[in-house]
């Protein structure tokens, strides 16, 4: 497994190079001059535009620019944005908030999704099963921004049990409802996946063996059945961590959370590529690493999978 891990890590290098190059290339190919509209009502003077272009290396060929980007990334020097504010400081402020939001969302997905799936799978056709099936269908058919605004309005404005927007500190309590919104789609899918998996494995021979061994029902379900049923579910949860991060843009917008979602959104509308590129690259890295972790975890969960 050690050799497999190293091989997989080495495979990450070309993928990272390819994706980051594409991000750089695409971003600088977008129409419109990022500096032309930065002087209020009047067009910017040529001297300003050319000075800015020189500062950010836009007068260089794309390959040189990319080389510069790689050098900066590896040395950790992210430079300043178009307003001359350090990029690293902005990312440093925003990143922990989004991480917190995403982890909270994963926890909600896992705890609520898996419990609901197990309960409904064990009593197929029962009351809980019907509730879970209907509510997950409901969540799956609602876009995230509808769920978000609905909960914000209902809990924040009407019932006033939460503050409608999140403060700069972004405490865990404040992030609970936004994380639920962010998690809602995946949570519904997790519940359905768990349910199917439980239903499928429940009639399996090894569960029958576990009962015949005289194990308690709690142990049959909690150890023998659950361990096997969760393999596909954990794979799904892991691979979705990356998409959760990028999905945070909408949720952060609704609840006014100052995470990377909001930062990215403002940077895109302001055409400030000095922020867009590092964030997009970081998201790629998160996605790749979480996928690798899932693959390694899969080998631990299912001993039949061997990495050699």
């Amino acid at each position: 497994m050690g050799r497999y891990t190293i091989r997989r890590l080495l495979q990450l290098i070309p993928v990272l190079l390819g994706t980051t190059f594409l991000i750089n290339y695409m971003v600088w190919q977008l129409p419109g001059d990022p500096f032309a509209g930065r002087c209020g009502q009047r067009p910017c003077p040529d001297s300003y535009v050319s000075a800015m272009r020189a500062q950010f290396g836009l007068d260089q060929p794309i390959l040189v620019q990319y080389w510069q980007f790689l050098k900066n990334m590896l040395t950790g020097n992210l430079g300043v944005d178009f307003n001359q504010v350090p990029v690293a400081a902005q990312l440093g402020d925003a990143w922990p908030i989004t991480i917190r939001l995403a982890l909270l969302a994963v926890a909600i997905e896992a705890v609520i999704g898996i419990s609901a799936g197990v309960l409904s799978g064990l009593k197929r056709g029962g009351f809980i099963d019907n509730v879970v099936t209907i509510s997950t269908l409901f969540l799956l058919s609602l876009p995230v921004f509808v769920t978000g605004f609905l909960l914000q309005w209902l809990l924040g404005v009407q019932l006033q049990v939460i503050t409608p927007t999140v403060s700069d500190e972004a405490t865990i309590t404040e992030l609970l409802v936004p994380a639920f919104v962010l998690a809602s789609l995946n949570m519904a899918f997790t519940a359905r996946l768990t349910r199917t998996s439980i239903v499928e494995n429940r009639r399996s021979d090894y569960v029958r063996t576990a009962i015949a061994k005289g194990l308690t029902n709690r142990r049959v379900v909690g150890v023998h059945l659950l361990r096997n049923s969760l393999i596909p579910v954990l794979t799904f949860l892991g691979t979705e961590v990356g998409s959760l991060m990028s999905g945070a843009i909408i949720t952060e917008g609704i609840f006014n959370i100052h995470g990377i979602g909001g930062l990215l959104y403002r940077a895109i509308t302001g055409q400030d590529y000095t922020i867009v590129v590092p964030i997009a690259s970081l998201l790629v890295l998160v996605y790749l690493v979480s996928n690798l972790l899932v693959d390694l975890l899969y080998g631990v969960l299912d001993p039949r999978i061997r990495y050699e």
Partner: protein
Amino acid sequence: MVEVLSEPTGRGSYSGALLEVENLQVEFHTRQGVAKAVNGVTYSVNPGETLAVLGESGSGKSVTAQTIMGILDMPPGKITGGEIRFRGVDILKLSEEQRRRIRGEGISMVFQDALSALNPVFPVGWQIAEMFRIHRGASRSDAKKKAVELMDRVRIPGAKDRVNDFPHQFSGGMRQRIMIAMAIALDPEILIADEPTTALDVTVQAQIMGLLADLQRDSNMGLILITHDLGVVADVADKIAVMYGGRIVETAPVHDLYANPAHPYTRGLLESIPRVDLKGQELYAIKGMPPNLLEMPSGCAFHPRCPYRREDCATAIPPLYPISGNRGSACHYWREVVDGSR
């Protein structure tokens, strides 16, 4: 009885048969209708005795075993009548918790396909050790030591090194030995083996049957051997119950049955075994198809396929006629069958 109930695993002083199944009836409720899988099965097993339950698929032999074990899927299955007495106590009337304690301790079971019957994600030693940890409250290390001992006892080479291996790392025969080790872990009084050798090579089949016979001799447990293979039965069984359409159609000591079957179905089964001295001749096969459990033939379930049938076979269900002390045949015309005229 009260004492037995409070201590369901205690080896009592009950003097009757160790396990008695009496007039057991099991149905399956399906969308197409009610399938009567078991229609009044009666048999018994004593310590050290081997009962072979013989029959084709759908005859109800496995369903009976699952009902004894308490692992029948209910629904769709439903026990509609009869008793299963273990040491004189009707276990069908016990609470789920009392039944759970009998499983593994009093009665245990070996399944046909060990690969799917063992949990794929846990080491085999862990799965054997679980018996001691759950039933006896043993510590992890003690339970593991006992698991190695058991793996030695079922003759798995290098047991100590293989205790942490997973089921898929073993061959079919070795996997079945692990199933057996798990089943005999707590020294049960009854072992039910549901087609234990069907999925195995012929040479491995003989080894597994030999192992079961040895273990039984050592511990004096009662063995219920469920099979459709007449060859497997002859060497190890003491008595045979032949099942057809959810009923026992013939029951006899093994040598009597082989020497002189008293039911047309048994006779047909024996005649359909390939024989070297009849090489080149067409192999005998029982005509027709096994009965559809949803639409059982009226009267004797075997009558549409029976070479001995008369008119009343289609109307009167034959009881298990006693032939001699421990023989019985559910055929109105068993005398003709025994005489061998056809």
